[in-house]
């Protein structure tokens, strides 16, 4: 019987701990497809810090490091500087990347650290049970904004790609979504481009993936995807915020 | 012979450099030695001081509290340290900048108008080395040639032209 659809080799054959309807699984798969297609599994080191992705070291077949909360870009810097010819990526959530790890994120970006960051934006702290994240939308109800995020108290969400795109060290800053087949295809292209950038030593690449968290949003998977489209995309528009190869193409 | 030397003045007068010259002299003479600077805000123009120990035994405490050789290049340092000089010790004082005169009879004071001598000889900024010249002469701690070797070690090759002016300053101090 002909095999028409396979699990990527770089994705471990284990059951994941992610909740039903969570889009982490899709993003993991996209990364692994890219790693397989580029033939770089043996040369890749992945770094997952604290958050829902904390146990992702069991899901990727390449060498993996579990970093302290928010510190993945610093750990990645250490690995990449020690092993400049290897591929290094981090996989971080919004609380990790844009709250406790903002400093590491911004500085690895401005140094043009030749790494890939996959940034999962689901507007909430998932692992700890649904608290306000730096990307939580105005009015969004979470455990720590029980009456909805009041921007006069809790401030405004951070648009990470827009912010990082102002830095000279950034090669690629792109926001994608995994809510539909066309968007998933775009997301994979973006991830591929990020790894290609690393191969060509172009500098820092970040792919922000708008994701769902049905459990902590209190929605079923379908409703969650609808919320992503209806509420998140308008606030966090999809698109390429910086791509230094775009200039080269012209 | 063991020496505990304290050098003190304003930041920018070359106090630490003068201490370094003595430390390298010790190195060249194969003595045990330590060099300890005051550090921190001092280097931005406040007071600076530097402890140098030269000995035939391993150095214990590198911080010189009661020196047997004191070099001072400003009034506040003179006031602070002159009373600490060990009986029988020697003090080398830049009398251009220090107006005070010592009344202690148990130490020997040498008043050298080092800053003025430096200006008169076109050696601005070398008052510290003039005082070092006087110190080695009066204490016998190092030979003139040792100072030259020390300067050759401290001053990087691209600034080698600075060695002769420094030696000239040493000589002025020795001859004063």
């Amino acid at each position, binding site marked *: 019987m002909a095999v028409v659809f396979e699990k990527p080799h770089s994705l471990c054959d284990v059951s994941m701990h992610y909740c039903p309807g969570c889009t982490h699984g899709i993003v993991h798969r996209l990364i692994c497809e890219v790693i397989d297609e580029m033939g770089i599994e043996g040369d890749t080191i992945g770094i997952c810090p604290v958050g829902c992705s904390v146990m992702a070291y069991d899901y990727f077949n390449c060498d993996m490091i579990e*970093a302290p909360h928010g510190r993945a870009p610093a750990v*990645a810097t250490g690995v990449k500087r020690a092993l400049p010819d290897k591929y290094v990526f981090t996989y971080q959530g919004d609380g990790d990347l844009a709250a406790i790890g903002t400093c590491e994120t911004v500085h690895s970006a401005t140094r043009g650290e030749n790494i890939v960051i996959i940034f999962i934006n689901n507007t909430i702290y998932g692992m700890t049970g649904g608290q306000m994240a730096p990307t939580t939308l105005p009015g969004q109800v979470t455990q720590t904004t029980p009456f909805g995020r009041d921007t006069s108290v809790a401030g405004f969400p951070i648009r990470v790609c827009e912010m990082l795109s102002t830095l000279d060290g950034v090669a690629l800053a792109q926001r994608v979504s995994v809510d539909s087949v066309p968007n998933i295809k775009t997301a994979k292209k973006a991830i591929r481009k990020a790894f290609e950038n690393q191969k060509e030593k172009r500098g820092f690449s970040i792919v922000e993936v708008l994701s769902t968290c049905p459990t902590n949003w209190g929605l079923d998977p379908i409703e969650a995807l609808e919320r992503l489209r209806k509420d998140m995309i308008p606030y966090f528009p999809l698109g390429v915020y910086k791509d230094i190869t775009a200039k080269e193409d012209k | 012979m063991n020496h505990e030397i304290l050098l003190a003045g304003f930041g920018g007068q070359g106090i630490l450099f003068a201490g370094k010259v003595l430390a390298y002299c010790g190195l060249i003479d194969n003595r045990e030695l330590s*060099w300890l600077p005051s550090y921190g805000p001092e280097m931005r123009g406040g007071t600076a001081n530097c402890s140098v120990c030269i000995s035939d035994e391993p150095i214990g405490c590198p911080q010189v509290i009661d020196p047997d050789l004191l070099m001072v290049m400003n009034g506040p340092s003179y006031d602070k340290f002159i009373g600490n000089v060990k009986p029988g010790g020697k003090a080398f004082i830049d009398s251009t900048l220090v107006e005070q005169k010592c009344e202690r009879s148990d130490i020997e004071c040498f008043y050298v108008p080092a800053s003025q001598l430096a200006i008169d000889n076109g050696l601005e900024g070398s008052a510290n080395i003039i005082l070092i010249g006087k110190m080695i002469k009066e204490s016998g701690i190092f030979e003139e040639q040792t100072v030259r070797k020390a300067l050759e070690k401290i001053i990087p090759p691209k600034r080698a032209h600075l060695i002769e002016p420094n030696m000239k300053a040493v000589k002025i101090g020795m001859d004063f």
Partner: protein
Amino acid sequence: MERNLMKGNEALAEAAIRAGCKCFFGYPITPQTELSAYMAKRMAKAGGVFLQAESEVAAINMVLGAASAGVRAMTSSSSPGISLKSEGISYIAASDLPCVIINVQRGGPGLGGIQPSQADYLQATKGLGHGDFQVLVYAPSSVQEMINLLTKAFDMADEFRMPAMILADGLLGQMMEPVEFPEAKTHQIPKPWATNGTGMKRKHNIINSLYLTPEELEKTVLDRYKRYEVLENEHTEAETYLTEDAEILVAAYGATARVAKSAVIKAREAGVKAGLIRPITLWPFPKKEIVKASENAKHILVTEMNMGQMVDDVKLAVECRVPVSFFGRTGGMVPKPSEILDKILELGGAE
């Protein structure tokens, strides 16, 4: 071998390069800054990496990354910066990664001052981060010893897969002394656990400190404590000076031990049988060395640049068999030999 004059901070940097340190990550803080500056100048030429990190936190996590990659990595700081690094140090210890951390201590707490201090003794030996773990702590007392212990710290860190700290202070960091660099005797061992790419030739390596099953986490801690036991039994170090007949035993480490030694010499001249024990490893603590050195002691005087942080360790080592007193200065004050001498003479019953 040629004798050279070097500042303690610079000697540590040069020794690290000679010990095969490939990555240094630092952040400016007085009084250790010369170390970073030296690394900035030399590391690239030596084929290594120098990077000024955006924070102390980032620096220690860069060390975590480089150590995971299997290379020798180091960071340095001074007291307030070490507090910031404690998160990363805990993770490094929990991930069984080797690295070297330098603390050129200054007065605390808080921003404190910038003058020499030993007030991070308890932090270094008992609580350098959350959780059950230890780091190797070496306390040099001369610039030459900084060189020797740094090389050793890298070797021991690799062998026991744990962080090692050089606990220095501003006085040692800033002073210059003649030094010699012995021919590199450093011993690098293979690191099959490193996350440096599987090359598709082995199962993936995982560097991790997360164990959600308590039984599993307990086991990793117990395994680590077995290694600690070996260190406590076999790798303690101390120097003794005139301890055979010492009735007053002074216990001091680091820069304070130099001052104490001067005081001991003067006490002997004054007819008091004083001796000095200088712990070189602060963890593991040289208990048996202290017991031996205190065989004839009527009194032990601990002296430090803090409020007496080593006193309990000494009391426990001698099981309170010998009375233990303390004299110290803190906040950046360096004790004078005469102050320690007075205390020795007082304890020795001299007039």
